[in-house]
């Protein structure tokens, strides 16, 4: 009897999984693919950055144009991310807590910037604010500069990072429903108090996740910013644009040195993202266990 059972389980085991050689082969192919397409290019960035030694590397980063580019990149992200956080919270609150007509249209519009080519993202602001754009002459008469200036760069960055926070928050808030907020309100809490004390803490991981992704894209955006920047050295160059200029001038070591900063940002983003996913999963499991314990008599 016992041998029969063992045989049966072995047969099912074979039937619902693959032979060891096949497993190893599939894992091997997948890893070689990821190695060639992801890890080697990432490694190459750092390798090229230090190809002429640490002195050249540090010189490239301390160059005044590079430092200005870093500052501008940080500025654009520092404006775009908070704006999109406020928008994300407002949009997610409206969409998840209320029913209204046109909700689906709103959700589609929020997704739209993901589907728009970065070049078009830049183009639309040139059409509005460029010197030959609709508002261009008026802006010029009043001494305001948006295109080929910092405000244009910020606008383009806001556009390309527009969906990130809202997209993370909407499903989380929809899943949570309104019961906690209603409870808080009936117990006498005010609207803002409920928002700060009840809603915000319960969506904090989703929010943080959105912020991290939003920030990575804001600091790394190239196409949209390139269209509106005008590439004025030391004035309207962000770090990715500075990388492009150095590369096109055959200053490869310097280009990769600046690129390595952006690659480090990407690695930090991936680590933070994984850590958040891990933490979120653990929180979830803990609350499920707690709920299961409560149900026990």
């Amino acid at each position: 009897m016992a041998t029969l059972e063992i045989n049966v389980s072995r047969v099912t085991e074979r039937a619902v999984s693959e032979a060891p050689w096949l497993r190893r082969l599939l894992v091997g192919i997948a890893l070689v693919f990821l190695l060639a397409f992801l890890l080697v290019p990432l490694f190459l960035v750092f390798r090229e950055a230090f190809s002429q030694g640490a002195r050249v590397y540090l010189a490239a980063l301390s160059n005044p144009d590079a430092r200005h580019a870093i500052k501008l990149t940080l500025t654009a992200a520092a404006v775009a991310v908070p704006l999109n956080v406020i928008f994300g919270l407002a949009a997610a609150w409206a969409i998840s807590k209320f029913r209204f007509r046109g909700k689906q249209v709103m959700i589609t519009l929020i997704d739209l910037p993901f589907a728009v080519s970065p070049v078009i993202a830049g183009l639309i602001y040139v059409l509005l604010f460029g010197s030959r754009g609709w508002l261009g002459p008026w802006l010029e008469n009043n001494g305001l500069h948006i295109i080929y200036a910092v405000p244009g760069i910020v606008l383009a960055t806001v556009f390309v990072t527009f969906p990130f926070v809202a997209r993370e928050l909407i499903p989380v808030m929809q899943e949570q429903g309104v019961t906690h907020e209603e409870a808080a309100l009936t117990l006498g809490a005010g609207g803002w108090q409920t928002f700060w004390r009840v809603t915000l803490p319960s969506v904090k991981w989703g929010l943080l996740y959105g912020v991290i992704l939003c920030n990575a894209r804001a600091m790394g955006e190239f196409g949209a910013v390139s269209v509106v920047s005008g590439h004025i050295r030391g004035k309207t160059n962000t770090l990715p644009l500075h990388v492009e200029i150095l590369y096109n001038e055959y200053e490869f070591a310097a280009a990769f040195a600046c690129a390595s900063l952006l690659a480090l940002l990407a690695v930090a983003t991936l680590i933070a993202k994984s850590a958040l996913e891990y933490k979120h999963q653990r929180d979830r499991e803990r609350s499920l266990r707690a709920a299961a314990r409560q149900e026990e008599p």
Partner: protein
Amino acid sequence: MAKRVIPGFGLSLGFATFYTSLIVFIPLAALFAKGLSLGGADLWRVVSDPQALASYKLSFGAALAGALINLLFGGLVAWVLVRYAFPGKRIVDALVDLPFALPTAVAGIALTELYGRNGWFGAPLGELGLKVAYTPIGVTVALTFIGLPFVVRTVQPVLAGLDRELEEAAASLGADRWQTFRRVLFPALLPAALTGFALAFARAVGEYGSVVFISGNMPFRTEITPLLIYSKLEQYDYAAASALGMVMLLFSFVLLLLINGLQFWTVKRAGG
């Protein structure tokens, strides 16, 4: 009418609508207004110009090829990550998102170096007679890179949520592993895989940063549509740039609708 219990409807919706109009809706409407200001005949001339047609062919063709590669390998990566244990799995899992996190310009110069004449991959491939950088193949490589996470990330959760008992049932009814895969697993995973494919395709069609370095930007040969728009803009031909932008946007809308339909299908499959 009963008073709404939850406050802030007017404020949150009002602000969200205002901000969306300002950042997304009005600027995109401006693009259509500018493009349509050309009038029918000129509009058609611009969007059907041979150089434009060549750029569509490259942009859509290379994006399609990249998305197909990602469909195949992304599906495999998702399978391996969900089903098998191997050392370093968590790091590999995190690494899959690199193309989302790495700025496109950085990816662009890294891939160009890698596949260039003296590059680590470019040199041996060149000896085999395969030129990658500054050819449509190079464009495909960049668009594969940029779309890599999509299929993995759409298939992974669906595969993880599948009930193993289905496969056991199929096996106990006499199906071999390949039959089980084809008849049970494949139909369950198909909507998610197609969603990922469409997302990768949509992203790749509009991609700019990672492509401009490796493509070489030769008109009629390696010039993608976004680059053509860019060069129209640099010649201050706003109307032509807008017209070409409209073609791309209309295509994106269609894809977006398709993706929404696919996601609906995925949810329905999973639920029923």
